[in-house]
């Protein structure tokens, strides 16, 4: 890409390594910390010489390991979706929720609970199907409205409109069905508690495919950032890049929401962190986000297990509580850097 400044490969790769180390540390904490505090060597033993008869091993392998892995996949999905979404709409306010992914998933889950009485694992499919259908709908509307393909402004407005309509319907159902509301309020807050391997296997393929496509179109996203005409002039197929970017958001965000509920803030904040650390080149921001997102989600999950013992704070609440000050500091630091 001749127009971007020559990237500093060394420092950026070092940063990536540091983030990977942080992720490993967060994952280790997530395995070790909980209502039942276990010494590190027991955790290590559980992973290397698993003994199903040992209750400590059982806790680590059957409870904390799937929870940690679901945290990693969901965090990766939300974060990379955030970067792609901001690149696609060229709007720093864009959140993965913007394509109505969250509201589509919510509506689908509330219908699953209220109409079909679906419990537990079956909701994952409903969440994913809802997210995917609604994203396709929004993208279709925006493409028709923008004529030459979905432009950032039409996408943003169509997303906001559909999202508002769906949220209204969800609320109307919840107000008329108290039992559904009682289940829904716990799903809606976003959490990783009680996730098992089944959830992981259901959502991993979507996340993996989404990440691969996102990384594949990172050059195209760089082109979009320079404006549509410039990107066309460079010989890029703008419409194709946009459609693939939307597909990525469906796969990543739909799977992540299916796994952990609608965690709305993580994608936005990690996209900003990644842009601050790695600069404007999507070939770097996407891997950065892919490591920073899981780190943030796991760290917040561990924090939520510790702060209100013996209870737990759901990870969605902690992400907002940690992320909001972080975002403010980030914005202020950047401002200072400019002076």
């Amino acid at each position, binding site marked *: 890409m001749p127009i971007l400044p020559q990237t500093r490969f060394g420092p950026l790769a070092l940063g990536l390594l540091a983030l990977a180390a942080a992720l490993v540390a967060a994952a280790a904490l997530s395995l070790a910390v909980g209502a039942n505090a276990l010494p590190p060597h027991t955790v290590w033993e559980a992973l290397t010489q698993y003994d199903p008869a040992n209750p400590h091993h059982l806790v680590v392998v059957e409870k904390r390991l799937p929870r940690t892995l679901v945290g990693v996949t969901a965090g990766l999905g939300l974060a990379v979706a955030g970067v792609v979404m901001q690149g696609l709409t060229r709007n720093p306010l864009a959140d993965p929720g913007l394509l109505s992914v969250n509201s589509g998933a919510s509506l689908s889950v509330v219908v699953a609970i209220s109409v079909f009485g679906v419990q537990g694992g079956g909701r994952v499919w409903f969440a994913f199907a809802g997210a995917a259908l609604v994203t396709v709908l929004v993208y279709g509307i925006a493409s028709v409205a923008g004529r030459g393909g979905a432009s950032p402004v039409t996408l943003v407005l169509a997303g906001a409109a559909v999202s508002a309509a769906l949220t209204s319907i969800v*609320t109307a159902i919840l107000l008329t069905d108290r039992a559904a509301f009682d289940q829904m309020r716990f799903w809606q807050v976003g959490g990783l508690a009680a996730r098992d391997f089944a959830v992981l296997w259901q959502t991993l393929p979507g996340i993996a495919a989404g990440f691969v496509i996102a990384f594949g179109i990172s050059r195209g996203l760089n082109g979009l950032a320079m404006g549509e005409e410039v990107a066309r002039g460079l010989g890029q197929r703008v419409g194709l890049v946009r459609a693939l970017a939307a597909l990525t958001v469906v796969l990543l965000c739909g799977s992540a929401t299916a796994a952990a509920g609608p965690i709305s803030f993580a994608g936005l904040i990690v996209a900003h962190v990644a842009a601050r650390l790695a600069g404007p080149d999507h070939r770097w921001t996407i891997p950065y986000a892919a490591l920073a997102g899981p780190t943030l989600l796991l760290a917040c999950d561990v924090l939520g297990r510790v702060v209100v013992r013996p209870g737990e704070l759901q990870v969605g609440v902690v992400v907002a509580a940690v992320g909001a000050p972080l975002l403010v500091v980030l914005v202020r630091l950047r401002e200072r850097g400019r002076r």
Partner: protein
Amino acid sequence: MSALSTPVKGQFRRARARQAGVTGVLALLIVVLAVCGLAFGKASVSPAEVLAAVLGRGDAMTEFVILELRMPRMVTALLAGACLGLSGAVLQSLLRNPLASPDIIGVTNSAGAAGVVGLIAFGLSGLRLTGAVLVGTLAATTAVYLLSRRRAGHQLVIVGIGVSALCVSVVSYMLTRTDVRDAQEALVWINGSLGRAGWDTSLTLAVCAAVLVPVALAYGRRLSVLELGDDPAAALGERVGRTRTLLLGLAAALAASAVAVVGPVPFVALVSAPIARRVTGSLALLPSALIGAVILLASDLVAQFAIPGVPLPAGVVTGVVGAPYLLWLLLRPAFRL
């Protein structure tokens, strides 16, 4: 104006005429909706009886229903909708972002959090709840303002989103911490409901609106200068920083006084200005305010009768009423924002 050439002058005049026409149509629509709001209910009343009751010549029962129950509700919907529409129009123009609305700078969601905490943790209601929400909202908005160092659009918006996210998580956390019946009542409030509107709260809102709306409309003329960009605006003699701060404060106060009374109604502030811009062809503050009022009045009417036996909060309907219209606008040829 004398420096302008004749075709530009003509264009200018046509734009003004169009805006005046739109304003007239909207005002008429509001009157019709207001009469419907007064006439329909559990006991429907004919428009003639509505008029008689308003003039003080109806029978006691009708007068009570109309003047004490439906009138404050209608007035609240009208004023809150106008305040929200105006606030959204000012913010979207000021921050140059079609996604900007009072949600973005933390007004709506902090109101939601303040209201839910007030309702669930302290059991407040009526004027006390309104006061608590007003204080909470203004405190949060001031915090957003003070935390964003340069007070320019971009930074303010990002800090606002952070604070909003925090408030949203407070709300969902509070909802999981309480009895499901209380939580459901709080859900009604979060979506913006006119069900609790009485004369005391609607008078509070009327006072706020009487002060804020004229100032916002007067200062709003400078928005078109600011839209040129900071340097051209400064060259035209505008004190950019001061005007922007003032307009931001006005927009926040308008939204705060509306949501303090009706709760954080979604979408009205977001959608009013794009619609107004579409129908008038330019940035139009008064039409935006009127469209806000139309949306909220119509939503409240639909909300009362959509599901028989379940009075929905108006905020549930604003999305359903506003969204298809916005989508239709988007799909029309030659949509310009």
